[in-house]
């Protein structure tokens, strides 16, 4: 078996990038920001999960929902299947590749050995596309890697069947029906409404704009989770990692969302959305400045209560700006 002709492209985010590249392969030309926006990808949450000793933040919707929401809103149909038997899962993958079908996979990022060890962490929600097999190695299109990479079949199996939170359970996905034209206007509108609802109306104190405020309030409690100053610094650095480095397109997905709003202005024929795009880009700049601030105080180990409060104030300002932004956006859609 060899490589399927597949246009590998790097992307900001693994899930939206994988979905974009797969539908592009099947003839539907669409950009990553549009896929992300139609899926209502932008979000915010602050919570303490059993996965980590420290509280964590996230700036997008639940893993897997980008694919689900995009397909529901556009009429593109994907086959999705999970497996309990790794042998059967591997046989099915080989069969599909043999038939020339690039296959999306959910994996634990830790086993993607084409990345340097310092880059790899245990996280079960990474998405890749298998595009071929050569002897014992699969050919992998990973949106975070500049080229098609080779991965030993044992590593891929470990990645596909890692246990723990949000275990992949061998998930495969690929388009089975891609319409020539999708209901783009409705898709964009539904994506916008979904995002506004998520950011403003979920009645839980740790999600949406309320989640940003909770992050601002709780940050001063972080030293209580740390073993020592290095441990705290490491976790403050992680804020930057989550916002800037973990496949967000920069500023916790705010920049990619600004790009989506630009495209939405043309699709919906509402030039005012260009202004919203600009405002979202500025909000993104504020998040990026927060990341730079976090990195600086972490490096200097300047992590006293006053600095954490200062960082909390920056976060709170972002919450206020996003609340105003999404409230205005809601009115713009209604008008």
């Amino acid at each position, binding site marked *: 078996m060899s490589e399927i002709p597949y246009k590998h492209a790097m992307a900001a985010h693994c899930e939206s990038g994988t979905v974009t590249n797969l539908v592009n392969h099947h003839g539907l030309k669409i950009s990553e920001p549009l896929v992300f926006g139609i899926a209502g990808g932008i979000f915010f949450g602050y919570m303490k999960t059993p996965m980590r000793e420290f509280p964590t933040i996230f700036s997008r919707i639940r893993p897997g929902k980008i694919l689900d929401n995009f397909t529901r809103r556009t009429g593109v149909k994907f086959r999705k299947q999970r497996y309990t038997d790794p042998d059967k899962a591997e046989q099915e993958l080989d069969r599909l590749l043999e038939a020339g079908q690039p296959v999306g996979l959910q994996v634990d990022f830790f086993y993607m050995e084409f990345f*340097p060890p*310092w880059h790899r962490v245990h996280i079960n929600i990474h998405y890749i596309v298998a595009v071929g097999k050569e002897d014992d190695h699969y050919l992998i299109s990973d949106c975070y890697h*500049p080229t098609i990479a080779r991965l030993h079949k044992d590593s891929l199996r470990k990645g596909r069947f890692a246990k723990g939170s949000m275990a992949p359970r061998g998930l495969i996905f690929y388009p089975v029906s891609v319409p020539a034209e999708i209901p783009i206007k409705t898709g964009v509108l539904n994506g916008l409404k979904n995002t506004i609802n998520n950011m403003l109306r979920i009645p839980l104190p740790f999600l949406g704009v309320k989640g940003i405020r909770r992050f601002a309030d709780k940050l001063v409690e972080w030293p209580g989770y740390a073993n020592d100053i*290095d441990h705290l610094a490491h976790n403050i*650095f992680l804020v930057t990692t989550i916002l800037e480095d973990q496949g967000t397109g920069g500023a916790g997905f705010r920049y990619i969302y*600004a*790009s989506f709003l630009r495209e939405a202005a043309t699709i919906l024929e509402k030039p005012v959305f260009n202004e919203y*795009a600009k405002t979202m880009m500025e909000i993104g700049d504020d998040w990026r400045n927060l990341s730079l601030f976090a990195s600086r105080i972490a*490096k200097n180990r300047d992590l006293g209560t006053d600095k954490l409060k200062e960082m909390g104030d920056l976060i709170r300002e972002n919450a206020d700006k996003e609340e105003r932004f999404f409230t205005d956006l809601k009115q713009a859609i209604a008008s």
Partner: protein
Amino acid sequence: MKEKEIKTDFKEHEVILYAEKEDDSFGPVVSGSYLAANYLDELYLIWGNFEKQWCERLLKMEISPVARYKNLEELSLSELASRAGIPRRKVKKHLLHKHFMKASVKELQQYADVFNVPVANFFQVIETKQDGSWNLGHNREAAKARPLTISQVKTANPLVVITNPEKTAS
């Protein structure tokens, strides 16, 4: 943010960012990771300190090898238990030296699979010493200048690896 302001030069770790381009359009830009470009040495320093700290506690028998890897991989107790398929209560015990001694080989294999290391690594610390300084791994310059590559080759027996120290090709 403008394209030229957002771009960072760091080839070892590149990401896609979205930015405002020269022509006023918004679009993707390939950039080096800001964090990696500016703070990687600092992160190596922190990780190196963690590695040293956990290793010292292991040698003093305060913690078990499972605890050492758990901390290095930043896994919580629940996450490790779930990934290894071992009850949380038992994992908690295995983090201590005295209870680790009672762990079965099968359980060790389950832990080793999660950490992606050979079982043998629970009973050894592989160190490449240069200039008498500590160079377990997370020292960027030392890693680059390392005169030896330690490869651990899998065999048909899941409990046995062949460890090969080889001169790093210059």
